């Protein structure tokens, strides 16, 4: 049976869009009788062309097959990240996409630790993004199970299980639907250790995974990236990986962590980001940024999917302006690696923060304020900190391409940043 799109986005409404891949799906095992539209299809209008012209200089689609941000060979995978453990060289690698890397992390973690349990809406058959495929078959329905459709129930359940010593990995089907669980996360998970004090009880075993971010046609309720709401909450760790190697290592760290972690997965990367991933168990450190590219003129701070867009902009800007740009991947958004960012900015004297979610009170605001608040860094600045982010609006279906930061907007910010003051 042909498998078209992933039974993906819960869509819609919990409905969604077609999978991370965004392709509107071609062949289908469709139930309703199948008849083709008799309307002449000359050049069918693409529903979300989003206004990219055929021969743009900057705004071209990201080529995930060749981007240096992904490891396309096993040898590059093993040296891709300086924080990978030393024994990584003993591990064979395999090409995996992001959802497969997540799946592998979950599987390894469950094999290694009997206290790991996995639950969420529709995860038994593999989840709408396929992250939990075959896990119920392998580990049984006591450890991998569907929950009723209730996010507050899912997270509250996870908190209880974690408080009693389990490693509870909860899936929220879309970050857009996490809000009913806000009370559980903010008032319970985040405060659990603080409230118990000397009792020492905590819910560190809790990891809450959720797909986030735009895919081109998710509109108001299938493209949100609400990380800034969680980075405002002391007690929660907030993590967002940019690719399969990172997703696996950071997720394993999150599950091991003795603090609750909100783990946000950019869903556009589930299928798009493919790289050679070491097959064994390894972790990457939480709370540590990664310098993806060194440079002395401008620092760009970003995380998740926009890193790819930043890199395209950087490559063009470096050619055009003869500069070198440093690209920093935050990886953990809270508690964040302020030292790494300040160190880079003290070197370059210029900083741009790029994220997909709204600019107002976003991660960019925190980074900019931290730069401003650090004397040594502030007096070194040669240009104002710039933020390239979503506008202060909800993500509109047709206008997403004008909302989410694109190569041209980031390129222009670099240009503004390096012009002489």
């Amino acid at each position, binding site marked *: 049976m042909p*498998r078209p799109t*992933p*039974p*993906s986005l*819960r*869509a*819609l*409404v*919990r*409905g*969604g*869009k*077609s999978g991370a891949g965004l392709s*509107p*799906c071609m*062949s*289908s*095992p*469709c*139930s*309703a009788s199948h*008849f083709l*539209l008799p*309307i002449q299809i000359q050049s*069918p*209008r693409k*529903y979300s062309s989003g*206004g*990219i*012209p055929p*021969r*743009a200089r900057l705004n071209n689609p990201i080529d995930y097959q060749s981007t240096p941000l992904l490891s396309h060979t096993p040898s590059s995978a093993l040296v891709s990240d300086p924080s990978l453990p030393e024994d990584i060289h003993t591990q064979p690698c395999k090409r995996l996409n992001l959802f497969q890397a997540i799946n592998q992390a979950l599987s390894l973690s469950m094999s290694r630790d009997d206290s790991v349990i996995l639950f969420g*809406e*529709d995860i038994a*058959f*593999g989840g*709408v993004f396929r992250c939990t495929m075959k896990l119920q078959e392998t580990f049984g329905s006591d450890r991998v199970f*569907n*929950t*009723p*459709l209730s*996010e507050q*129930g899912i997270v509250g359940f996870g908190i209880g299980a974690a408080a009693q010593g389990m490693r509870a990995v909860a899936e929220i089907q879309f970050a*857009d639907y996490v809000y*009913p669980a806000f009370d559980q996360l903010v008032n319970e998970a985040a405060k659990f250790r603080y409230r118990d004090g000397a009792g020492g009880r905590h819910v560190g075993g809790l990891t809450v995974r959720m797909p986030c971010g735009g895919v081109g*046609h998710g509109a*108001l309720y299938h493209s949100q990236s609400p990380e800034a709401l969680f980075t405002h909450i002391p007690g929660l760790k907030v993590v967002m990986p940019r690719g399969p190697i990172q997703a696996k290592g950071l997720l394993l760290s999150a599950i091991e962590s003795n603090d609750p972690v909100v783990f946000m997965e950019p869903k556009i990367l589930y299928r798009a980001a493919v790289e050679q991933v070491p097959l064994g168990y390894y972790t990457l450190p939480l709370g540590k940024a990664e310098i993806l590219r060194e440079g002395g003129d401008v620092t760009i701070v970003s995380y998740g999917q926009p890193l790819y867009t930043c890199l395209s902009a950087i490559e063009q800007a470096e050619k055009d302006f003869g500069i070198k740009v440093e690209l920093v991947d935050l990886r953990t958004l809270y508690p964040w690696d302020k030292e790494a960012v300040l160190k880079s900015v003290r070197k370059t004297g210029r900083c741009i923060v790029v994220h997909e979610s709204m600019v*107002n009170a976003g991660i960019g605001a925190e980074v900019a304020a931290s730069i401003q608040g650090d004397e040594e860094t502030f007096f070194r600045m040669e240009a104002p900190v710039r933020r390239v982010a979503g*506008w*202060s*609006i*909800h993500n*509109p279906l*047709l*206008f997403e*391409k*004008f909302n989410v930061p694109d190569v*041209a*907007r980031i390129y*222009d910010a670099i240009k503004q940043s390096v012009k002489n003051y």
Partner: protein
Amino acid sequence: MRARIFSHARRGLTRPKHRSPPALRSVQHPGIRAGSSLSQRPDAQFLAFPGAVKSAFTSSLKFSVPNEYPAMETYRAVDQHGEVVDRSFTPDLSDDKVVRIYKNMLLISTMDMIMFDAQRQGRISFYMVSAGEEALTVGSASVLEKGDVVFCQYREQGVFVERGFGLDEFMNQLFANNKDPGRGRNMPVHYGSAALNIHTISSPLATQLPQAAGAAYALKMQRAIDPSIPPRVVVAYFGEGAASEGDFHAALNIAATRSCPAIYICRNNGYAISTPTLDQYRGDGIASRGIGYGIETIRVDGNDIWAVREATKKARELALQDGGKPVLIEAMTYRVSHHSTSDDSFAYRAKVEVEDWKRRDNPIARLRKWMEAKGIWSDAKEKESRESIRRDVLKAFSEAEKVQKPPIRYMFEDVYEEMTPELKEQMAELKDHLEKYPGEYELAEFEGGRDSLNP
């Protein structure tokens, strides 16, 4: 009138030997809590605590076991062969009106098939069909008044059609063109119509259920202030999966305590995406919960449009009695389709299960059999109707597809009543950017191009 089809709010939780008294609301002013004035009398045989005012004491230590109570019954007027099974039932519609309703069911079914394929061809980004649930949506909407206020979940195209939403309106929304009142912001199937009193669909589940209680309270208050306003109710549709959300419970409880004239209609179609009802709940469906909240409740055969109509009609009467009260209808049906165009349901259910349902109990076929038995429908009429509906859908489709996209400016509007200085700044910044980098953006398809971003 068939009061028997509505379970009394307290039935089911009370064991037969201790019949509940008539609903308390009849002796209480809806707005006043009488509980605080109760006190336990010496040697009382009944509990008189404020939280349970008429519970008899018993000396037998016995837990209530859900399975010992029979499942709530399912009302049907016409069986799957199109034969009337409720002897007291008489259709309240002229033949012409029955045909009109039937054609509305055909219309959404035809539109669904065409739009599902349109998504597969990449013409629209997303779609959800409602196959199997046509009787439920069309039937319930067919007994509402124009002034009633409706909240839909997302699989209620039948409600829209029945209330007068045109094919052009469906298509404009699906293509998010410049005629779409949603201004190009929403995913396909997020219809809404201020003129038809249907709130715009919101993807998150159950969020609109407590809103329905508040809206119903507003209607009640407004009529109290101005008695010349005709009585109105609010109707909220949701699935059995959505009923697991906290908002569902919040909604029913607040609607009951504030005596809100709201009708809650659950489409229990067996699946929440892949999750079957066994993983969703272990009680007797959704209907049994209504009893727990003190709400008059009925379960109906959702594939029987007559049962749905009769139940909704009666529910509307009840909702407007005694100063207003909520009513719960659980309509049993089967989601014949995939959840959406993003879903392949054969990854979690057998094709044969779906085929069985389609063959055995199709709501459209059921009404057709009834009409044929009555001599008001024929193969020839069926063929002619299907062809003409299909032509209409395709015509609306191609017209809507040609309409220009809305202005880019719409992305900044309606965040607030008035655009904030921050948003004005951002709009100017985007315009400057588009001017600086004209080769990077295709703007011609949007009405007004860059100029729509002028202050």
